[in-house]
């Protein structure tokens, strides 16, 4: 208000403000954000309708990373799908591997040996950890906090080192097989893993000290991007976003798969479901993942050496020694490599709790070695759909952290 207006009477002041509003011609502006924008780490485009700095409406345009995942899967053998699942979510490839292979095992009615199951859980939790580290680290980076991002990425490097030790690749793990795993963990892995977990805990502590109680960080996240419980459910949102709104729904507890029912861990939930709650849920889930990983190591050591694969010639290859010396095994190996397994006709849906929520695979087989349908239910895509509802009426600047905590991963969203 100008210096002069302060001397006006109440009534005159009201008239002056009306005049001010009337004379100032405003119009909505459409801002094109992306598809290649530093804060949309993933290729996605937003058409944001702005009134000043407030978001009036938003159109999300996805599909820039569409590469025909389902089409490719439906034109190869069941085994050839596994490397494609690596490329769904680059942060947590093992989770997609596990989800797909478990869905095929459901059709084949196979049960993986204990050791294989514990190793799958171990791999899954390390992958979940790396996913959450990226989410929280990148959110800080985009709120102009470089240091915590580096703490997060350093911890992610350590998890990726572990994954590299486990399966030979840092990002595209390709570790899980139908009926088991590619191989057992290397010698000395448990002690190395424990040392690394201690280091990761240290980095998480540093991260926590810099970020969690930080006034600027809290002010940016509290009350932004919130959406009510009922709306989230109607939109099919799962994972940390739903748990932050107070719904204790986690498939590891709700529909325990693998050996999760034998593991002691907690499901953190939030209260209001804003970005700060989402952050807190993710931070606590990382601690829980480390807890689960430690229990896995303990159990794997207690179990002792043993098979990680089912002994089923339909899906696993015979031992190399026998392939070279026995006719039957040689034929079996030849057929397994050139044709791949035949999966009994039928349909099955299997969902696991990925870092972003329910990652499901709906498979249809007609009894041949080629799938009829490989549908991936992508949590990234489904969690992104209510994004306009989360940011409408808020400030443009709050759109960024909200998008960060949705953690849309282009590879999985667009498939």
């Amino acid at each position, binding site marked *: 208000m100008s210096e002069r207006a302060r001397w006006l009477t109440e009534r005159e002041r009201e008239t002056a403000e009306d005049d001010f509003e009337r004379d100032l011609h405003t119009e909505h502006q459409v801002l094109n954000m992306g598809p290649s924008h530093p804060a949309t780490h993933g290729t996605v485009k937003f058409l944001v309708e702005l009134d000043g700095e407030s978001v009036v409406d938003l159109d999300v345009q996805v599909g820039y990373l569409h590469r*025909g995942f389902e089409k490719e899967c439906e034109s190869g053998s069941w085994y050839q799908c596994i490397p494609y699942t690596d490329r769904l979510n680059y942060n947590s490839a093992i989770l997609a591997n596990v989800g797909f292979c478990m869905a095929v095992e*459901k059709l084949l009615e196979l049960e993986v040996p204990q050791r294989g199951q514990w190793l799958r859980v171990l791999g899954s939790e390390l992958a979940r950890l790396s996913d959450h580290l990226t989410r929280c680290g990148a959110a800080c980076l985009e709120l102009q906090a470089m240091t915590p991002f580096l703490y997060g990425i350093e911890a992610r490097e350590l998890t990726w080192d572990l994954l590299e030790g486990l399966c030979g690749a840092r990002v595209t793990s390709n570790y899980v097989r139908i009926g088991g795993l590619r191989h057992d963990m290397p010698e000395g892995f448990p002690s190395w893993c424990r040392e690394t977990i201690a280091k990761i805990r240290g980095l998480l502590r540093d991260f926590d000290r810099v970020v969690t109680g930080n006034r600027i960080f809290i002010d940016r996240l509290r009350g932004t991007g919130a959406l009510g419980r009922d709306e989230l*459910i109607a939109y*099919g949102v799962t994972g940390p976003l739903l748990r932050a709104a107070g719904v204790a729904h986690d498939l590891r507890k709700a529909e325990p798969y693998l050996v999760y029912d034998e593991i002691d861990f907690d499901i953190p939930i939030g209260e209001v479901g804003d970005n700060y709650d989402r952050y807190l849920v993710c931070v606590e889930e990382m601690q829980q993942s480390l807890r689960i990983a430690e229990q896995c190591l303990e159990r794997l050591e207690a179990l002792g050496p043993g098979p990680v694969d089912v002994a089923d010639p339909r899906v696993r290859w015979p031992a190399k020694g026998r392939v070279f010396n026995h006719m039957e095994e040689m034929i079996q190996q030849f057929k397994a490599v050139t044709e791949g397994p035949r999966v009994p006709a*039928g349909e099955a*849906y299997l969902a696991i709790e990925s870092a972003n929520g*329910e990652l*499901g695979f*709906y498979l249809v087989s007609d009894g041949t070695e080629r799938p009829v349908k490989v549908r991936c*239910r992508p949590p990234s895509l489904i969690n992104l759909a209510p994004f306009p509802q989360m940011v409408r009426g808020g400030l443009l600047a709050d759109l960024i952290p909200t998008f960060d905590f949705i953690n849309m991963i282009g590879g999985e969203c667009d498939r």
Partner: protein
Amino acid sequence: MEDHGSPVLRRLIDVHAAAVEATHARFGDVTACVQRAHLARVLCFLRDDPECGFEMLVDLCAVDYLEQGRTPRFEVVYHLLSLASGRRLRIRAGVPEDDCTVDSVVELWPAADWMEREVWDLYGIRFDGHPDLRRLLLYEEFEGHPLRKDYPKERRQPIVGPGSAGG
């Protein structure tokens, strides 16, 4: 009609006997095949009925059975979840090739908005009553629906963008 020990399926058969064509529960996945004409009504019932209470539409996809020679050629598949009871249910409905339309359920679950757009985009199945049935993953100029089995995997189309409009 067999209910396979599922109270939800029993309830569905009791109330909508005419709509349910077949049921199964292989691998523990409770499934009902319903007639396309009754689909939206059945789904609405499953959401609103207190004994069913499927408040979440988990997934919606389509399957093309061209190579299996099945009629109707397409099928739309809905996966539902009730958070309160933890129950899941799969609903399937056949869609013939010459009339590729299904009633939209966006009114029931806003989650269906993008899912239906994706099915339209990749399979060319229209959803009647969808407020904004645009392609989701591909661009409007794209010809055909690539997840149909008669769309060749090798087919390439130019990427059309704002810079190449008209040329």
